[in-house]
């Protein structure tokens, strides 16, 4: 956990007071909507189809149990008893009332939470690996650098009115769990030939109407230079990014139009003027920030304790869940547990107030009070003693977050779509539910292995459909919902954009199409352990396309 200081607390408290005043003036008629809208958006308050929506930032996806309990309280007191975890590791409340928002925000502020920079043309929540700090394959905790950046860009006047929003991700593990290449700016910590630590800098990634994967503009940047370089990228974008056309305003368009090399040159020119100034960071700064991350007092424990092996032998359901949802931890005797927010029939990423409260209690008891949010819209308990797994599993199952489908076909990433979102063309959630129900047979899902489906209700791509192994995009045709299907996208260290397989299919046929694709995969794979995505890469989309459209 990161401990906020007085500066953070004061800033959040002052913002609540300002917003209370602004809401009062809006309700009394002193402010028009035109005047009020930018103020509410600065605090993460959107207007959706049915109500206002409050988006709350969860920096680098890390939550304390106290924060999660407060989110439960907000869900129960001001909303309809649930919240929605997003692909940017934030949480949204979809039924919030403007009149009650200042109180909700004050409650959130009491645990250091807020909606600042969850909207608007500024630097949004810096995201990272949900296993940061505990993954065996990471070099250093990437949240330290995410936090350095967060502090620098929070309410930074120069970066509050950029051409468009700006999303940054930081990773430091061999395996990319932060979807680095789909970000405006991504930093990957690694060692160079001389053994020094530094970052690969990637810019210009993003999905939406014109999807691009980020391009590497600097293969190695010393740690001391991370902030000055980020500043140089932001400045270059701020200066040259287009402001005349919202569809061409993201940095990905600038990088594409200029070319990555020319863009990098501009950044270097800017960077040279600031790199040895106050933004050059020495190790003391990193140490200070790292020191504010509190790591648990792990106790020495046996790895793979006998009791665990016995529990796995004794209970098949436990064993299946263990195989699916539990991952190695860097400390012996501990493990990382993923909580599936994708129960059959549920909405991907939704959690009720009761679930949040119960998870907060379980985190206190079994995970040193810490919870993580991943971009796949699941939660993680990052520090669980392996010997506690059988007891924890029963309690997770009791509250419906132990579905053993993590990374399987029913672990669907989905945006809210037309059921909530005013920008949507089509619904996403019912599509996710239909597919999950079609593959409710757990053996079948396991047999298909790792398979990521991503669904977006419009081209804004909040469901990251371009990088789904199977991507589904809702479009509207003559007032009817249709869905385009892409195959072969992936968001890991070998990121790719999916390929469209053909004409869009109607709402009622999407689950059938996914079934056809799954059947084609089973026939096409060379070995039972050839992953879906590897088969698609080997064969291309043609055989899948033939299968899907043969009878349509």
């Amino acid at each position, binding site marked *: 956990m990161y401990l906020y200081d007085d500066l953070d607390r004061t800033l959040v408290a002052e913002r609540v007071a300002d917003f209370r005043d602004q809401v009062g003036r809006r309700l009394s008629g002193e402010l028009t*909507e035109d005047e009020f809208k930018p103020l509410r958006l600065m605090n993460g308050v959107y207007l959706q189809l049915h*109500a206002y929506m409050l988006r709350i930032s969860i920096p680098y996806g890390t939550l304390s149990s106290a924060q999660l309990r407060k989110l439960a309280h907000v869900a129960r007191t001001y909303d309809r*008893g649930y919240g929605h975890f997003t692909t940017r590791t934030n949480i949204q409340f979809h039924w919030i*009332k*403007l009149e009650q928002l200042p109180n909700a925000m004050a409650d959130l502020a009491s645990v250091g939470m807020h909606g600042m920079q969850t909207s608007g043309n500024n630097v949004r929540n810096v995201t990272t690996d949900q296993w940061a700090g505990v993954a065996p394959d990471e070099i250093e905790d990437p949240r330290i650098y995410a936090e350095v950046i967060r502090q620098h860009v929070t309410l930074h006047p120069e970066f509050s009115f950029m051409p468009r929003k700006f999303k940054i991700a930081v990773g430091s593990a061999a395996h990319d769990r932060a979807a680095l290449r789909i970000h405006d700016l991504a930093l990957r910590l690694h060692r160079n030939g001389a053994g020094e630590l530094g970052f690969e800098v990637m810019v210009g990634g993003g999905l939406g109407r014109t999807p691009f994967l980020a391009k590497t503009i600097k293969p190695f940047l010393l740690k001391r230079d991370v902030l000055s370089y980020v500043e140089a990228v932001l400045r270059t974008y701020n200066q040259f990014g287009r402001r005349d056309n919202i569809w061409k305003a993201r940095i990905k368009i600038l990088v594409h139009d200029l070319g990555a090399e020319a863009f990098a040159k501009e950044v270097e020119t800017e960077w040279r003027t600031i790199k040895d100034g106050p933004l050059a960071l020495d190790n003391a700064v990193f140490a200070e920030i790292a020191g504010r991350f509190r790591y648990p007092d792990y106790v020495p424990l046996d790895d793979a304790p006998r009791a665990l092996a016995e529990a796995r032998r004794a209970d098949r359901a436990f064993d299946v869940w263990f195989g699916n949802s539990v991952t190695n931890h860097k400390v012996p005797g501990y493990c990382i547990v993923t909580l599936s927010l994708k129960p059959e029939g*549920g909405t991907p990423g939704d959690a*009720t*107030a*009761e679930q949040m409260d119960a998870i907060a209690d379980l985190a206190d008891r079994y995970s040193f009070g810490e919870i993580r949010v991943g971009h796949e819209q699941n939660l993680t308990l990052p520090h669980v003693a392996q010997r506690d797994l059988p007891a924890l599993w029963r309690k997770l199952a009791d509250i*419906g977050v132990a579905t053993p489908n993590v990374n399987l076909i029913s672990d669907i990433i989905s945006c809210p779509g037309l059921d909530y979102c005013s920008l949507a063309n089509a619904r996403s959630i019912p599509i996710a539910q239909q597919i999950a129900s079609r593959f409710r047979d757990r053996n079948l899902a396991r047999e298909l292995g790792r398979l990521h489906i991503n669904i977006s209700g419009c081209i804004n791509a909040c469901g990251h459909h371009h990088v789904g192994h199977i991507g589904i995009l809702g479009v509207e045709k003559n007032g009817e919902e249709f869905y385009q299907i892409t195959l072969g996208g992936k968001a890991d260290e070998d990121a790719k954009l999916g390929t469209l397989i053909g004409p869009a299919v109607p709402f009622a046929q999407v689950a059938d199409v996914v079934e056809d694709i799954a059947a084609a995969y089973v026939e096409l794979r060379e070995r039972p352990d050839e992953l879906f995505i590897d088969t698609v890469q080997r064969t291309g989309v043609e055989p899948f396309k033939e299968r899907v459209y043969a009878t349509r």
Partner: protein
Amino acid sequence: MTSPLDQKIKITGPVVVTANRVGDGAVVYRRADGGWSTRLPEAAVTSNVATAREFIAAAVADDLRAVGPYIAPVKLTADGGVQPGNLRELIRLGGPTIDLPVTF
């Protein structure tokens, strides 16, 4: 964004003016008496461009009570009832088409 007043109004059938209520964001429909109602059957319906323009102008001026007014299609039933004219409006009126998470 273009103000609703500057937008070209194209109407192919009966329409109402809808918006969200300022205080709680609830979906509301403009009534003939200038008030707002959460009940679609109470909405003022027109198929006439000039009247629709009047409705939207009055709604825009009523910024204190309703936010983001626009013209939405409706369907008239044989018995004189009013129903949402498309899926989006159906969802705005009736709520999400999925079961909301239940507390247990």
